[in-house]
């Protein structure tokens, strides 16, 4: 039971990390132009920040 009480919060915490990461990508407009982002990597000398 002790190991469970340690692992359960850890797994929930890792899940939360995932949600937080997703939230961050969402906040930074990373899903606004999937086709453009895929194409933009092929261009030279382009800044790769989403606008």
């Amino acid at each position, binding site marked *: *039971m002790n190991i469970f009480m340690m692992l*359960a919060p850890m*797994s*929930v915490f890792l*899940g*939360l990390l*995932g*949600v937080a990461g*997703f*939230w961050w990508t*969402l906040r930074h407009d990373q*899903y*606004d*132009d*999937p*086709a*453009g982002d895929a*194409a*933009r990597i*092929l*261009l030279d000398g*382009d800044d790769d920040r989403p*606008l």
Partner: protein
Amino acid sequence: MALIEELSSAPDHSAFLRPGAGGRPALELLVKGARCAGCMSKIERGTADLAGVAQARLNLTSGKLTVTFDDTAHADPGAVVRLLDRLGYPATPYDPGLACEASDREGRRLVLCLAVAAFGAMNTMMFSVPLWAGLFGQELGPATRVVMQWWCALVATPCVLFAGRPFFESAWRSLKARRANMDVPISIGVLLTLVISFSETLQHGRDAYFDAAVSLLFLLLIGRWLDHQLKLRARSAAGDLLALQAPAAVLIGPDGAERRTPLSEVQVGDLLIVRPGERVPVDGLVESGATELDNALLTGETMPVSLRPGEVCRAGALNLTGAIRLRALARSEDSAVAAIARLVEAGAQSRSKYVQLAERAAAIYVPVVHSAALATFLIGWAGGLGPREALLRAVAVLIITCPCALGLAVPAVQISASSRLFRRGVLLKSGAALERLAEVDHVVFDKTGVLTEGRPALIGAGGDEIALAARLARASLHPLAKALAAAAGPGPRADDVVETPGQGVEGAIDGRRARLGRAEFVGAGSAAALETELWFGFEGAPPVRFQFSDRLRPDAAQTIAQLKARGLAVSIISGDAASPVAAAAQAAGVNDWRACLTPVGKCAIVDDLQAKGARVLMVGDGLNDMGALARAHAAMAPGAALDASQNAADLVFSGDNLSAVVEAFDIARQARRLALQNFGFAAAYNLVAAPAAMLGLINPFLAALAMSGSSLAVTLNALRLRSRR
């Protein structure tokens, strides 16, 4: 006489500038045809190299180009549009408006809720699996069970409260308006489930449904998100009717100076100048100058109309050959274009009353489920169960019948139909449009630009004359000259070209004077001066005749035959003269046709048909069709149509194939069949599951299984639409 230089003057787009990042003026353009990294780099670099442009950024997914200028004084939106045109990507400026931005925020919120619900569903499940095992006689002591249940509660409760907000808020709004939408039973079900689960956990019972509450929201949010995606696609597909009108008019002041004025400030009696290539801004009387007007989008007439001083021209017509001075006869909002815009508005209102399948299902579903749950509680209590046990059964009924399958049934079908249509080059603008299209039993076609290619093409003649005449033709905007130039392919222009409005062009080819135009202009005598022909001749030499006709689309006849084979009635309504309409109708195999119709006349015909009980699909492209497009039960427009007509239509098909109409109709019918199947499945599921819940046969494991199972079945059924054929 109009000089060629004037042809290059383009409409003024400065009305579309708006303050962008850092207070600098920005322009948003909808760019057509950009598909790859190469296009993107060409467009962005080309635009950024223009004088006064600070930054250009293309969104390849939505096709929107945002151009930021250094300052207002040096901003020249016209230069950007001309450059894009030259690069081969036609662009329209548009006003993004607040609606689009707001809906984007709504979309993000849904995605975030979806992510939280997914996290909640997965992590609650981690603690639920031991609980389920306990239900089936595996070793699980009461102490461990309570610990697991508390863990479930800890993870699920915040997730439910966060991810459920879209439903709670919508339910609250609808309750305040004294109505009950689908979100009311969802919210009540979810919140009641949470409360009951807490009470069960506190009383060391076995029926805690934390996992059900959160996975329910997860499944429902998928449906909600798909629905939102469809709406978003619809909105970004819509253009702006005002983009069609010249956004500014050129006013001639009392001192003779020209001044650009916003359209809304033009008063009756103002003197305006309209150059070739511009659209007539308001209805007006010609004071001086002569030209030809392309009324195709206003009336559907194929041939340009010549215009002389003292005659009246309508707003929205395209000036082709010469500059004219106009005395404004109406203000912008009273002009012909604005009148058509009002027809569209009225049509859109009547169409918004359409009740979608899912709403109809919800109207039946909500009262039935709630009375069933209430009945379970009352009968259970009266029948000797304790209040706790009776309440548990009522909640089990609410959970098991919660409309996951129902909520997914329609959006899942519509999104797969929409992506299949998209692969065929048809853009669907709303889910409701698909349902309306499936109900259609009468198809009404416009002629010009829909059944026909909408532009004259050279027929018959051939030989060296084409190449020579094309040198003159390239200098003119006249549709016949353009057709001749297109038939000849790229080549040089003649020298010293002068265009006489309404007559033709004259210039020097290899040092010899030559003329291209009407019979009398070229000197062929007025033997048979048809509108659909051009004469070409060198000075002193006998002229040659070129004939043109607006060709029927190659698959028009076949498409109409296929529509008839599906039991649909077909008619043609056109603003063009009777003889070309009759010819096109005969060639296409349609007996029912009407010609010489005004935009209002087209609306009246569509209204009349619908009053007789027909459900009309209108297929049209011009401004004169817009009223009819907006009023018809469903509407389609070709991709070459005016942005404003595409706006009024439900579906837009690209490419030259009219057969897209048949395909779209077939897909709509299939989608309707699948949606009804899904409803049937959801009903059958509820017929089995609800009585089981009423009898208390449901435990948390079965609830989770039934819920995700039914949602999965409905989704897989919807996916069949993607793979068929």
